């Protein structure tokens, strides 16, 4: 038995050690004890491996969440600011129409001013927020960009429609309803995308 001999530290002759270990294993209680010891070692090793893997996942989750928090959640306000800008400008257009005596549509200069404010807000959102979101996920940036662009297009249409020959109550109600519908769609779309992109623990 050269294999045993190489790891033996006892001075007892090898056959005697073997016989002793065999006699230990031959007793039922000793056999059960050694099985329990083996099982316990196995469980300890598995637990250790599992906790290492869990620690690794936890670190990865924390890292991903920190990026998500800094690059996406921090930017959420920018998406709402864009919708707020659209709201303020549509109110300005209604106000301009109401203040005309006799009642008339807002002037072309007023519509251009509102369109300009909307354009500036859109550019700010694209340049400052969407570009940063791409640091977290390019796909998320592309999807958010599509929703922002669609909203920008719809608001541009709504603002341009104010150059009517006459502003009627029906027209004002339709414009308001269109504004609400597109804004709700925009906000829902943005928040569903942001919620779904949140890193999750495995």
């Amino acid at each position, binding site marked *: 038995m050269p294999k045993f001999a190489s790891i033996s530290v006892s001075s007892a002759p090898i056959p005697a050690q073997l016989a002793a270990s065999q006699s230990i294993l031959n007793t039922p209680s000793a056999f059960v004890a050694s099985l329990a010891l083996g099982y316990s070692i196995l469980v300890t090793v598995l637990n250790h491996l599992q906790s290492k893997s869990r620690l690794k996942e936890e670190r990865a989750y924390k890292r991903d969440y920190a990026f998500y928090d800094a690059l996406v959640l921090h930017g959420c306000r920018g998406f709402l600011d864009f919708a707020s800008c659209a709201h303020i400008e549509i109110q300005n257009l209604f106000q301009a129409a109401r203040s005309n005596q006799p009642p008339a549509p807002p002037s072309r200069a007023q519509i251009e001013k509102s369109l300009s404010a909307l354009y500036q807000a*859109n550019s700010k959102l694209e340049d400052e927020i969407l570009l940063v979101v*791409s640091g977290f996920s*390019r796909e998320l940036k592309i999807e958010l960009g599509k929703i922002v*662009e669609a909203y920008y*297009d719809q608001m*541009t*249409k709504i603002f*341009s429609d104010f150059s009517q020959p006459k502003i009627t109550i029906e027209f004002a109600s339709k414009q308001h309803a269109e504004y609400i519908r597109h804004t709700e769609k925009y906000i829902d779309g943005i928040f569903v995308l942001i919620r779904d992109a949140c890193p999750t623990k495995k």
Partner: protein
Amino acid sequence: MPTTIELSRFLASNEKALVGRDNGESYKKKLAAAGYDIDVLEKAADKTVLIIPAEILTMNKSFFLGLFELAVQHLGAAGFSQKFEIRASDYIVEKIPDYVQAALLRASQRDILGA
């Protein structure tokens, strides 16, 4: 001799705003079908003048990108302004340099991010 495109020939009735990337791409196709292919005109020796009628209030960035994004990216800002002249309201004309920069920025973002 410059090629002149009167956009009024292609506008839908009561159209007051040129809006949306899809719409810009659709106009690009309409113009190509009428013999004004932007992809060909950008390579032509002569200048192209696009006349947008006064009743059009605005041309937004996404429409411009649908119509001219590739031409801007191929020609660069200076090359585009030499090759294409857009005659429209002051409001629209003032915005063109920003739109050109947006088209170039999109190209560089695509190069950097692969997106």
